[in-house]
């Protein structure tokens, strides 16, 4: 018997990606943070930016929140300085202060492929600092973007609550 959970697990990233039209954001590792912020502003749906090298291959991901934090620690420093209470936070602050490019701020190059499943994506997205992932091909070139919201909608559809969304599920008679 197919349950919403089993349907959700086996849904591919390609199918999930089609639910919402969120364009991916791609920047180069050596792009300055102003350029990165402008790119994020031009594509407001994506919350994680893909960072690529000169061959357009994924080398890192940069959550928009991380970019905001970095910029705002210079605007409202008191909010950040007061929260530093140990050596690790101190060193992280120093690293943030010195960040000038996307490459300085990016995280490891997490991604999924079109043929991967929602389960694979959730395993990677199950951390508080990442709310979306770039979709890459076999050569690690960015071909799309999958957001946590799309994962949520996969489950909603599988539960048959499509009336809210106007779609159809297999469960319909």
């Amino acid at each position: 018997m197919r349950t919403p959970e089993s349907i959700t697990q086996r849904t591919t990233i390609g199918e999930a990606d089609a639910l919402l039209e969120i364009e991916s954001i791609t920047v180069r590792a050596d792009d300055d943070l102003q350029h990165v912020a402008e790119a994020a502003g031009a594509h407001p749906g994506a919350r994680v930016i893909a960072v690529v090298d000169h061959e357009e291959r994924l080398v890192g991901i940069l959550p928009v929140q991380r970019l905001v934090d970095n910029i705002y620690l210079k605007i409202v420093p008191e909010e950040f300085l007061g929260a530093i209470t140990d050596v690790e936070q101190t060193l992280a602050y120093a690293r943030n202060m010195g960040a000038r490019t996307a490459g300085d701020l990016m995280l490891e190059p997490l991604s999924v492929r079109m043929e991967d499943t929602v389960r694979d994506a959730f395993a990677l997205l199950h951390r508080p600092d990442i709310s979306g992932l770039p979709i890459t091909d076999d050569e690690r070139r960015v071909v799309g973007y999958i957001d946590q919201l799309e994962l949520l909608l996969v489950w909603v559809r599988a539960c048959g609550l499509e009336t809210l969304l106007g779609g159809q599920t297999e469960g319909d008679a």
Partner: protein
Amino acid sequence: MSPLLLGSAIFVLTYALIASEKIDKMIAALAGGLVMILVGIISQEEAFEHIDFNVIFLLAGMMILAGIIRKTGVFGWLAIRAARLAGGEPYRILVVLCVITALASALLDNVTTVVLVGPITLFLAARLGLSPVPFLIGEILASNIGGAATLIGDPPNILIGSAANLDFVAFLSNMLPVSIICMALFLVAARWLFRGYFTVDPKLRDALLDLDEREMITHPELLRKSLIVLGLTLAGFLFHGILHLEPATIALVGAVALMLVAREDPAEVLQEVEWPTLFFFIGLFMLVAGVIEVGLIEVLAEGAVALTGGDTAATAMLLLWLSGILSGVVDNIPYTATMIPVVQQLSEGQDSDVLWWSLALGADLGGNATIIGASANVILVNLAAREGHPIGFWQFLRYGLLVTVGSLLVSTVYIWLRYLL
């Protein structure tokens, strides 16, 4: 193999492992101490008897206090307020930050000082469009000079104070004057030492006016309670003779009192205690117990007497300069732990505590010589590197060596005038 040779070999190997940093120093020290037991040089009972719990609990108590105070944002408030009062003028800001660092180091541990002062420094330098390098180097130097001033300012002082029965007041009256003189001379010299770094765009000075230091206080109520408890703890140190209480008891009372009134979660608070550091001390005490048992200390003490002819003045100078030089390149904690029984032997029959003050000054001030001389040095240099302004070994050495030699010269004159004339 004779016990002396075996014990000495264990000691040297342990020391080498600590200095090389190939394995964690806590593990090296504990292993060295345990090997002394395993090979039968000392028994477990003898090893444990040598663990100075006054030191352990004094450190633990102060770590708890510092861990809670860190959360209040008080030093950030102080730094920003002071920087604004300095009018954004770089040299004045350097002076202000160094003084704050020295004060913090005199009362709290080095790690806390770095956490409190480091980020603010990076931020102020960035706001003014300046390199943070002179400020960070200045703070490194100030932290070691300031830490020398009090019983609780530097771990060697805590070790010496406990072994020689020298209390908080004794440290204030003997170490504070020379610490103040060294600090004053350093701040005057800093204008010349860092002369290329102080040009600031006048427009950027006004950027400091945007800052609101009140926002730095994250827990006002906790701050009030912390300052009261810290004040009472310091008063306890000052009057511990009248109270007939050891420093460790006072520190623990302060820590427990603050946990009580601040209603901090004990599990969270205890995470602030640097357990590896405490076990490092425990390992060292056991190691030194073995070294005492095999007679290595007598050999070292006799060697010192042979070198100086038993002359107090010569011995004091030897201790001061040897400690100063060695502390610049090796961890001053195991060095001090090893030298304490030597100085105990050399001090027998002495009227004054001059040898103890020589050891303390050398061990504390020597930490300024190199990047690896003290833990605060390592952390602040790491901070600079992460922010994109690395401080090289030789770059720091130019400043560190100058300030160290200057401080030791001042200490030489001080010791001579105060204890030997």
